[in-house]
């Protein structure tokens, strides 16, 4: 009899534990929990890792001036969007605009506010080679497709007249982890090369035809640095902090552009649609670097949900408004490109459309 009882207890326990695990995996959890003064004065955010150094600097400065605490977890764009969908954070941050599937998972509309911009550079390792290499979109696509195999390929030589290219094999390095950097890079390649679009496509992780995967910017950088003849793509901020060699890239207007803070800001100097959702890759701007991208802060358009107070919603909007204006002064020192004037004005307009119980929060 006793053993039957024990088995019954075990069965119940199985069901309960299993159930808990399932709900745990489905994501939501009860979230912020009971309200107190401290939760009222803390904003939770989660998302992209790329702008994390800049955001944490901004939030620290804002905290000094206004006493508002911001807790930002850099768990990746995809994770940030998931947490925003399950409403466990106040804002999300992403290097890519929401895709259709993510959009349909949301219970209410979300707005994209451009908060900073960055670029992806093509870095290479050619020992005894001091010049800056020129790349065309076609060369980059063919290298990453595995079609150009040697550094002294005639196609590379054609745009690098007067320099002596070595006969070294090209060794491609790419990101092994899913990332916004890969997303910007593959979006660019899909735009400039139909072959790339049909064979590989764009996404935060793709099926690479050639090359080695490294984890994070540092993984790719390590792989390129260690391999003579290596080529890879990393964020501009990372490349300039680590004194890595990177090439000029021909943009849509035909100019060879060296990636820099100025040329990335210039890339955003185009007509930005009213919803802020624009890809800067292959920009029309004549002096803009073509593999640039905005990074967005995502918030719900209607801020009255889950018992949020008007006070908290207002504090958050003021924070974001400060980020796209005064906060931009911290960009340069950290190698981020400040938002272009057009991006800021679009961001302002979007913030004014955010409502609480149907009424605009900011006047």
């Amino acid at each position: 009899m006793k053993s039957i009882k024990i088995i019954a207890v075990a069965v119940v326990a199985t069901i309960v534990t299993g159930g808990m695990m399932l709900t745990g995996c489905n994501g939501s959890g009860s979230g912020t929990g009971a309200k107190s003064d401290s939760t009222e004065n803390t904003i939770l955010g989660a998302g992209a890792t790329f702008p994390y150094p800049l955001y944490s600097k901004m939030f620290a400065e804002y905290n000094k001036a206004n006493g508002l605490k911001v807790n930002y977890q850099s768990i990746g764009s995809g994770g940030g969007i998931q947490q925003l969908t399950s409403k466990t954070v106040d804002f999300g941050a992403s290097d890519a605009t929401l895709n259709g599937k993510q959009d349909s998972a949301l219970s209410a509309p979300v707005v994209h506010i451009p908060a900073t911009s960055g670029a992806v550079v093509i870095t290479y390792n050619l020992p005894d080679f001091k010049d800056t290499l020129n790349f065309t979109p076609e060369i980059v696509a063919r290298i990453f497709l595995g079609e150009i195999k040697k550094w002294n390929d005639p196609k590379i030589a054609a745009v690098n007249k007067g320099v002596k290219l070595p006969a070294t094999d090209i060794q491609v390095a790419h990101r092994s982890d899913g990332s916004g950097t890969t997303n910007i890079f593959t979006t660019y390649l899909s735009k400039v090369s139909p072959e790339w679009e049909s064979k590989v496509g764009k996404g935060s992780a793709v099926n690479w035809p050639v090359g080695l995967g490294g984890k994070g910017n540092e993984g790719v950088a390590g792989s390129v640095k260690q391999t003579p003849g290596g080529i890879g793509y990393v964020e501009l901020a990372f490349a300039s902090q680590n004194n890595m060699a990177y090439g000029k890239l021909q943009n849509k207007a035909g100019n060879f552009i060296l990636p820099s803070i100025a040329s990335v800001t210039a890339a955003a100097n185009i007509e930005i649609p009213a919803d802020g959702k624009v890809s800067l890759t292959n920009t029309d701007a004549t002096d803009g670097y073509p593999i640039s991208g905005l990074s967005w802060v995502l918030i719900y358009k209607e801020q009255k949900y889950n018992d949020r107070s008007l006070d908290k919603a207002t504090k958050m909007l003021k924070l974001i408004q400060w980020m796209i204006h005064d906060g931009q002064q911290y960009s340069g020192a950290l190698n981020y490109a400040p938002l272009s004037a057009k991006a800021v004005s679009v961001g302002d307009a979007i913030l004014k459309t955010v409502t609480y119980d149907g009424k605009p929060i900011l006047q």
Partner: protein
Amino acid sequence: METSIDNNLITRSENILERVITSAKIRDAVKGIKRIKRSHRQIRAENVFRKTIVIVALLMVVLVLGIMLTLVLQSILSIKTTGLAYLWGKTWDPVQDIFGAYPFLLGTLLTSFLALFISIPFSFAVAIFLGEYYPKGWLPNLLKNTVELIAAVPSVIYGFWGLAVLVPIVRSLETKINVAPIGLGIFTSSLILAVMIIPYAASLGQSMIKMVPANLKEAAYSLGATRWEVIRSVILPYTKSGLFAGVLLSLGRALGETMAVTMVIGNTSLIPKSIFAPGNTMASVIANEFTEADHPVYLSALIELGLVLFLVTVVINMIGKRLTKKFTN
């Protein structure tokens, strides 16, 4: 169950005399209510204790079943989309939602077994040295602690060491034997894994070797056997199931290792053509792609990868258990 019966037998046989004495004592004490109360309480405490340990032990089973159930439920979407072809599909393309786990399954098995192959001579040598030749003294102690330390070092440190030291060495080796000098790949990961798993087989093996009855060894020596002959014909046959269990433990560790492997394996979804080619393992694909898996089928396919890894571990463990039994008989 077996052990509890054994214990009963032991207590019974030992304490017949004592029981007679105590029962006499109890008869004397029946008058005192205090005494009866205490024995009631003791019985209740016994029962509570027994129930507690049974529940705690069952909780372990529940936990494993719960993990398995979660993995199965979360991967249903991917199983429906891809079906069994998931196991032998050669393409992993998150953009077009084509998911085939074959390259990663192959990578996991290749790195783990190669690592096992490399590590066995070292772990057995350490086990025999510490168990038979020098069981006591400062040098064996130092060696023992060092080997145990190998297991305590966090795997990310092995990853860094591999990247900074091992990769250039393997690269220069590859240049000498005329394969593409990449440095990263299956071979490098196996080397790292081999170092990481040595302590498991070594420490279990040495305690097994120490447990070989002295009279067996002495009998062999008295018949004129040399040390090598004693090791070969007495110690190894006597301890083979224990040594094998240690090897199995190492293999389990190698199959699931993530961080160090991710850093040196090269992370490509292409099928490795040789042991020097880059590849990928199931554990490192999950670690790499989980955070940014941005659509439901993709996420589900990654969870199914976890399920496959779980099943591979279970199957290998079951085969191992069977082989251990076979060795013992």
